[in-house]
């Protein structure tokens, strides 16, 4: 049998999806099903004075209307899952439905339940809510200012959290040879998976069990939280995420809508469906980033770095979302030194409430912001001392021999050869040649720019005791059962919950290689709290590094037991039996053998088992990773900026990523493409825009610039492989590499192109207008 791990196999999950046989949440249709629609606040900040639902209730087909008052004592507010340790956290939870005040435009005020979705929409318009508008605050720095409106009356200065890590004496900066300082704004972006959120809930009065199908990246977390919110024991709440159309972090968060739909189904004893409309998604599904980051890097004229200090003022929105507090603190803070040997580092984060949609994880969660600030400041440092940015990187990248490397932020990077990966990327683009070309083109008035980022990020959280120490309300281990049926076919259960990553294929590859059976004999079961005993879901690129590791260990346990049974049948000792390519053989007597399928049958029939061996063949693992994993890479972007219009043409994009051992290079490359596209999207086009009174101006696909196919060049993706020592697969995580590596590579490229204009920094997104204005003002001042 061919090697499975490392093979670019096409996906097992595709046939159903490309023939229209997938089953997404909105595809679920149950007898007697009702349809829910939410009434949402048009104001960013207002007192609710009265709600009149009579008109709606009079509409034929309307079954019920719920307001915040109706849910008091029945549905609790949805709590955060990350009480960041040592951050003076003032956690504010989002009520199921707003009771007396709304704090962002789009906050749920009431739920209508009707016989179909059209009637439900009609009824929403018939509900009259009387508001008293209050002044709103949108920007985090304005919210911190003296006299700013308070989002929550008892949270002074709107300061939700203050977190500090590391220390650097002032002299490191006052006495340094070189200090560069920059304020960077990592703008607010909206995850926008193409499938919006949604929930279908069904209550079974016989078993007193509530089932919620919803668009979830982590159904077990959702069960844990919604059980608490709804006051139902976990044993009587089943959460199922069927096929899920992307998440990118936005479907990790626990939300009020899903819980309220669950309540309505239980209350009405009829199934209820709610599918988020795109405009609701823009208003109500978590946003991300929105961090004002001030960074100061100290170093020497020869190019070496000596200290860094960073201040992050993060906009958390109106409430503390699921992982909302963790992203700008732990996720961000631990990574501020990037891929470099910077001996001293300090970070402080201010988390601020504003009258905007809550922010939470989005592909990378904190790490893209960390990579952006360090990769931008490294370029500015290089410019300051007049050195090539690649040379500065080479001087400071953590050397290969230094791994595992402990950073100034106190984390241990697992493995890497940063220089080699950078070298490969430079070779692919022909860096030297490009620099010469850039010189020539400048003479002709053409503005070519070359941008490099040598990012590193943190994935696959672990171990769970660390999660506990940082205030994360749960474990970060992962569960898998590998169950062998009498025929030798295998069901693999995983606690991760894929939503487009191709996990059914990668995990099957791992099991096929371990058990020596055809990949088609393996099915993956995930996303259902009733089938899978426990799990923590899919986020932070933990799928393979943690979930896949559990699968590998469970499969090894199957092999170990099968070997005992095979040895017994072959009348040999287990040490004399070898297993390869699906066959157990007595060493030295290969004709004495049993296939895996034969052992599967005998294990399940149990007619002739060795003493003390239990029937059936099943392996289980609860893998708690001993450490995080740290994917890294070198991304190089080449752009040309049009001097007349400010338009940016992406000429080349090279991504050399190291995600440890690659299980399926085809799927890994797909992840890189998608991540890079989202990263370039943030750099050049995407951005949530609010008016001063808290109206989301970029609230549809007509106003929010989602990346389209013709915007991109071919992404040249390669991998280097430095396996991680922290899990048995050596895998690190690939999902976030692109969103982490791309923004600084692109912005560095544009800034490089704009150097002749004396422009040092512009905030993302680098729209043509912004670039043109910057060039124009230099021209006018020249």
């Amino acid at each position, binding site marked *: 049998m061919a090697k499975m791990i490392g093979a670019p196999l*096409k*996906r097992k*999950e*595709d*046939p*159903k*999806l*490309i*023939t*229209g*046989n*997938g*089953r*997404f949440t*909105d*595809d679920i*249709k149950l007898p007697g099903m009702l349809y829910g629609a939410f009434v949402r606040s048009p104001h960013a900040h207002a007192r609710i004075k009265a709600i009149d639902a009579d008109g709606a209730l009079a*509409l034929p087909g309307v079954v019920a209307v719920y307001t915040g008052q109706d849910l008091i004592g029945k549905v609790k507010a949805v709590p955060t899952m990350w009480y960041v340790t040592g951050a003076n956290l003032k956690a504010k939870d989002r009520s199921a439905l707003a009771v007396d005040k709304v704090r962002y435009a789009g906050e749920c005020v009431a739920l209508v339940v009707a016989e*179909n979705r*059209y009637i439900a929409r009609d009824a929403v318009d018939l509900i009259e809510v009387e508001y008293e508008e209050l002044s709103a605050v949108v920007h985090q720095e304005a919210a911190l200012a003296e006299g700013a409106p308070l989002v929550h009356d008892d949270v002074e200065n709107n300061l939700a959290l203050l977190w500090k890590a590391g220390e650097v004496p002032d002299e490191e900066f006052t006495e340094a040879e070189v200090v560069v300082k920059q304020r960077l704004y990592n703008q607010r972006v909206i995850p*926008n*998976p*193409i*499938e*919006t959120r949604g929930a279908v809930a069904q209550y079974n009065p016989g078993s007193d069990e509530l089932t919620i199908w919803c668009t979830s990246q982590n159904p077990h977390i959702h069960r844990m939280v919604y059980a608490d919110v709804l006051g139902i024991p976990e044993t009587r709440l089943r959460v199922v995420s069927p*096929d*899920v*159309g*992307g998440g*990118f972090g936005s479907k990790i968060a626990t939300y009020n809508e899903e819980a309220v739909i669950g309540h309505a189904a239980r209350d009405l004893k009829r199934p209820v469906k709610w*599918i988020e*409309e*795109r*405009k609701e998604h823009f208003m109500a599904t978590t946003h991300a980033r929105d961090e004002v980051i001030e960074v100061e890097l100290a170093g020497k004229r020869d190019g070496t770095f000596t200290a860094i200090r960073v201040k992050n003022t993060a906009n958390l929105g109106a409430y503390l979302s699921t992982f909302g507090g963790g992203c700008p603190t732990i996720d961000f803070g631990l990574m501020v030194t990037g891929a470099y040997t910077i001996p001293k580092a300090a970070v402080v984060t201010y988390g601020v409430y504003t009258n905007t949609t809550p922010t939470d994880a989005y592909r990378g969660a904190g790490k893209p912001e960390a990579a952006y600030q360090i990769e931008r400041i490294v370029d500015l440092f290089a410019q300051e001392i007049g050195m090539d940015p690649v040379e500065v990187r080479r001087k400071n990248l953590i050397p290969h021999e230094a791994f595992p490397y402990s950073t100034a932020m106190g984390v241990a990077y697992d493995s890497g050869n940063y220089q080699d990966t950078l070298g490969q990327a430079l070779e692919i683009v022909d860096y030297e040649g490009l620099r010469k070309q850039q010189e020539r083109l400048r003479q002709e008035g053409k503005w070519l720019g070359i941008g490099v980022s040598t990012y590193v990020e943190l994935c696959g959280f672990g171990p769970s005791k660390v999660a506990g120490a940082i205030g994360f309300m749960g474990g970060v281990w992962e569960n898998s059962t590998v169950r062998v049926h009498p025929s030798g076919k295998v069901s693999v259960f995983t606690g991760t919950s894929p*939503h*487009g*990553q*191709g996990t059914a294929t990668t995990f099957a590859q791992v099991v096929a290689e371990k058990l020596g059976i055809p990949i088609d004999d393996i099915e993956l079961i995930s996303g259902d709290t009733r089938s899978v005993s426990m799990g923590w879901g899919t986020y932070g690129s933990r799928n393979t590094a943690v979930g896949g590791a559990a699968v590998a260990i469970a499969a090894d346990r199957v092999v170990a037991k099968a070997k005992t049974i095979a040895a017994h049948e072959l009348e040999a000792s287990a040490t004399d039996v070898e297993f390869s390519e699906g066959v157990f053989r007595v060493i030295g007597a290969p004709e004495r053998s049993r296939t895996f399928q034969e052992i599967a049958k005998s294990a399940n029939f149990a007619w002739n088992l060795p003493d003390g061996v239990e029937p059936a063949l099943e392996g289980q693992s609860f893998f708690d990773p001993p450490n995080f994993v740290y994917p890294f890479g070198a991304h190089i972007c080449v752009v040309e900026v049009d001097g007349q219009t400010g338009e940016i043409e992406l000429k080349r994009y090279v991504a050399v990523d190291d995600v440890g051992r690659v299980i399926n290079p*085809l799927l890994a*490359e*797909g*992840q*890189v*493409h*998608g*991540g*890079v*596209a*989202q990263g370039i999207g943030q750099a050049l086009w995407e951005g949530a825009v609010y008016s001063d009174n808290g109206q989301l101006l970029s609230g*549809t*696909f*007509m106003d929010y610039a*989602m990346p*389209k*196919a*013709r915007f*991109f060049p*071919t*992404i040249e993706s390669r991998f280097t492989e430095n396996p991680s020592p922290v899990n048995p697969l050596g895998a690190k995580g690939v999902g976030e590499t*692109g969103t982490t590596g791309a923004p600084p590579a692109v912005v560095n490229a544009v800034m490089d192109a704009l150097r002749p204009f004396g422009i040092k920094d512009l905030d993302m997104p680098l729209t043509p207008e912004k670039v043109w204005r910057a060039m124009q003002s230099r021209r006018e001042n020249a």
Partner: protein
Amino acid sequence: MVTVTKHISVTVNGALRQAEVEPRLLLAHFLRDVLDLTGTHIGCDTSQCGACTVMVNGEAVKSCTMLAVQADGAAVTTVEGLGQMDAMHPIQQGFWEKHGLQCGFCTPGVMMAMVGLLKENPDPSEEEIRDGLEGVICRCTGYQFIVSAVQHAAKLIREAEETKQAMANAGEGR
């Protein structure tokens, strides 16, 4: 309130389907909710994402921008009618072979749009495919493997055409 309904007959994937529908019912909801053809997806409310694209009388149309009553008398093809598990359409083969999807939510609509493109241009360049994808949004794939998938599908269709042609010629020669 009296709900006015209208009787419509639509040929969907080759079969005649009839229903009483409200005039405001979108074609997308008619296909999904009335006919239970859930392969066609809805991703936006502003006709931007293309997830709902189907063929109406041989042309790619966003089914969220059309009313079911407007499809009265028309022939509609949805993803279910393109090809099934055991007999896939070349575009489906292309997407499978070349990893043209991740979550698969946009995919039915994207494939329909590309079937439309290939009808007009059987041998599109990368640039033409990227232009042809203007009406759809895929958040997962970065589009690169969608481009490869469409090129692969185009090749499969051309090869099938050539074989058909060769067989027809051979037939004439006899």
